[in-house]
């Protein structure tokens, strides 16, 4: 049997090695096999490790210098990239970070507290599962996607080999990030994900891609500085070198800095812009890094630390910042018609909700945050993949172009619809967790208001999109959809996962999340514990007979459907009947015109360009008030 240390090694190493292998083989077919095998293996390792857990391992004396060396190496690489791009600000930030690392290394002296280097507890297990399973699925999908993509990619693109090196390797890095307890290792993996993200965003090599990659690098480098500063200050405060050290010492100042670092990674306002820019990357990247896993690192970090700081002013501000991001990102998502931007804003918004819940830091809030984290990763990953497939087919990511897709790509459309419904329909996990979030937010009235506003807005943009997606004309003929097997199979599997897991949300809550929250908040007050238990009673299963009956009734109706009942739409009496122009009406000059209804976007009231500066200003104020702890 594998030892914990081997598990950690495998979790990190398998993908890294797989990535290198994938990069090494020059043939696409073989590479696909390598990638798929690696993905399978990673998933397997992940599951086995979680079954074997929880555990923690403490590395020997080699650990710290190695980590330092790796960190320096990473900083060097970043400097090199930035230098090449003449991004002096990034170079500056990287150098500052370098300085901080060295200062820490050479000033703090001996590191007294011996804490585990890597920990696999329930929280990290959940993330490991997300990374290894959903991540693996996305990687498999990417093999099919990239074949298609390569055909249309601009000449500047970096090529598949580098792509898969980074993408597959990223899984290992991300595993490392969620396992790391030691601050230095955390920083190493943290910087690595930044680098992966940078490389993948810039994959296509166009001017826009490069600019956006640099922006991501800049903002995350800023976060990196905050992280390093946190490590330095922690080290100065009694030689803390690990996350649980910070928690047990209740070190507020490092915590605040870590929160800022987390906000950059989780693209919270005012650091959101890089994530929107990141949408230029190929869609599997968006799915993997920019919605399912990497951006979760930030909220994960806060979630991990928050229980120790429950009730502090610091967390109140964090909650407020998260809530603010939740509401404002939802509002901006309403104004977007670009599907990937909608998804991006929605991701930011949900991350904000996780952060808000983490900030509220009651058992229920904690549970809600974890629920959102899981369900969001799955659903959003799926949705990104769907959008990718759709985009490859119709050549557009505009929501308004997605009408009548049920015609041309029924499978993807149904899966997309399922994915979107899981985002907002009872009894799926997202809705249940949002519900818990609201119940939890009772403890923080201001956050509550933001959460309420955000939820209402969220419904708006999803409904708009769902409506557009399933718009069908009245002469249905469903062709078979062609898509690489790797893509379609992943879509189906992930969809099944999302739907099944979503329906079982309360089961998941009961068996997994509730005990975990209880465990984490062993000392919480009675009424918050009661709230936690009450949330578990949310669903009385029998009431779901109604939707079930509705579904059955639907099937029954469709089975005995009489096509003669299909009529032309109401077009004020001026229908113009022709198969291809099904919604045409005769208009001026007796010429047919096609009725078309664009959804509401409020481009004027919710103007992104106008609102963003103000939102950023408010968010900066919140971030600055986070730093208020420095004065304490």
């Amino acid at each position, binding site marked *: 049997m594998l030892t914990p240390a081997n598990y950690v090694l495998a979790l990190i190493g398998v993908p890294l090695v797989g990535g290198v292998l994938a990069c090494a083989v020059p043939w696409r077919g073989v590479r696909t096999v390598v990638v798929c095998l690696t993905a399978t293996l990673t998933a397997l390792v992940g599951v086995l490790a979680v079954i074997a857990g929880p555990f923690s391992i403490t590395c020997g004396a080699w650990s710290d210098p190695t980590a330092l060396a790796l960190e320096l190496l990473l900083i060097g690489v970043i400097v090199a990239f930035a230098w090449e791009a003449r991004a002096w600000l990034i170079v500056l930030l990287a150098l500052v970070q370098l300085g901080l690392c060295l200062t820490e290394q050479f000033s703090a002296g001996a590191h007294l507290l011996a804490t585990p280097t890597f920990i696999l507890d329930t929280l990290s297990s959940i993330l490991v599962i997300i990374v290894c399973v959903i991540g693996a699925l996305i990687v498999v999908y990417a093999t099919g996607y990239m074949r298609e993509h390569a055909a249309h990619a601009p000449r500047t693109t970096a090529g598949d080999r580098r792509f898969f090196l980074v993408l597959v390797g990223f899984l290992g890095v991300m595993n490392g990030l969620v396992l790391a307890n030691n601050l230095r290792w955390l920083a190493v993996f943290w910087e690595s994900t930044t680098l992966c993200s940078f490389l993948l965003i810039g994959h296509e090599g166009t001017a826009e891609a490069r600019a956006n990659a640099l922006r991501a690098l800049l903002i995350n480098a800023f976060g990196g500085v905050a992280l390093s500063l946190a490590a330095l200050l922690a080290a100065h405060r009694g030689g803390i070198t690990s996350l649980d050290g910070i928690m047990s010492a209740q070190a507020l100042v490092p915590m605040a800095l870590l929160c800022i670092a987390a906000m950059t990674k989780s693209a919270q306002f005012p650091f959101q812009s890089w994530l929107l820019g990141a949408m230029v990357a190929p869609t599997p990247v968006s799915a993997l890094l920019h919605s399912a896993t990497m951006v979760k690192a930030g909220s994960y970090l806060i979630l991990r630390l928050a229980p120790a700081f429950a009730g502090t002013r610091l967390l109140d501000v964090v909650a407020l910042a998260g809530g603010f991001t939740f509401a404002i990102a939802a509002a901006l998502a309403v104004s977007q018609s670009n599907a990937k931007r909608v998804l991006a804003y929605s991701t930011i918004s949900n991350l904000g909700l996780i952060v808000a819940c983490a900030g509220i830091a009651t058992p229920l809030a904690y549970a809600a945050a974890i629920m959102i984290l899981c369900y969001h990763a799955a659903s959003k990953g799926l949705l990104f993949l769907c959008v990718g497939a759709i985009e490859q087919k119709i050549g557009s990511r505009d929501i308004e172009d997605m009408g009548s897709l049920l015609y041309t790509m029924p499978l993807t459309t149904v899966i997309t619809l399922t994915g979107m419904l899981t985002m907002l329909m009872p009894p799926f996990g997202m809705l249940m967790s949002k519900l818990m979030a609201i119940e939890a937010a009772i403890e923080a009235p201001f956050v509550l208001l933001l959460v309420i506003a955000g939820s209402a807005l969220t419904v708006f943009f999803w409904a708009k999109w769902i409506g557009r997606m399933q718009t069908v004309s009245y002469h249905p003929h469903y062709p078979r959809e062609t898509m690489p097997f790797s893509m379609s199979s992943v879509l189906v599997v992930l969809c099944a996962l999302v739907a099944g897991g979503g329906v079982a949300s309360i089961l998941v809550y009961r068996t997994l999340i509730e005990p975990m929250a209880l465990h984490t908040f062993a000392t919480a007050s009675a009424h918050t514990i009661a709230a936690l238990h009450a949330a578990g009673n949310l669903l009385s299963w029998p009431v779901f007979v109604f939707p079930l009956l509705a579904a059955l009734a639907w099937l029954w109706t469709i089975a005995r459907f009489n096509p003669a009942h299909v*009529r*032309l739409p*109401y077009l004020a*009496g*001026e*229908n113009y009947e022709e198969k291809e122009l099904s919604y045409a009406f*005769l208009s001026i000059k*007796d010429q047919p015109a096609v009725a078309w209804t664009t959804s509401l976007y409020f481009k004027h009231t919710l103007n992104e360009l106008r609102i963003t500066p103000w939102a950023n200003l408010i968010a900066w104020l919140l971030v600055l008030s986070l730093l208020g702890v420095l004065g304490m």
Partner: protein
Amino acid sequence: MAFSIHSMLAKSPWFVHYNCNSCNGCDIELLACLTPLYDLERFGVLHVGNPKHADILIVTGSVNHRNARVLKNIYAQLPAPHVVVALGVCGSSGGVFAGAYNILGGVDKVIPVDVFVPGCPPRPEAIIDGLVRAVGILRDKSAGAATVPAATPTLTVTPSPAPQEPHVA
């Protein structure tokens, strides 16, 4: 006919109105039927906006080349069972406009008509009478009875002793 599901159609006749070539005379009298003084809702009558919700299509005016197609479209969107009422002499025959270059004739030139209401314009009382007839036909249609297309009888007078035909009330 005591309580039967078919009588429900008679108790809740919703109508949609389309103005073909009417001079408005018939239309405003129809609208007047909805207002307090005549209040068609007493009979469960509702004025609905689109044919898909309607049981009765009330057409005012005669048919011209352009609105014929609209009329056909609306007719095609009526859910069965349904009844068509042609209001006014225009709808019955073209009335005073018969013979104009853009007049095809009465509504029955384009779609089958179940009730003709004479008058130019018909008074609200006459419209109510027409609707009462329509409702009866609706019930019959719902029960599956065969209905015959409406006729527009003429009145002939000859020197007595020949009696008057009883078509005029």
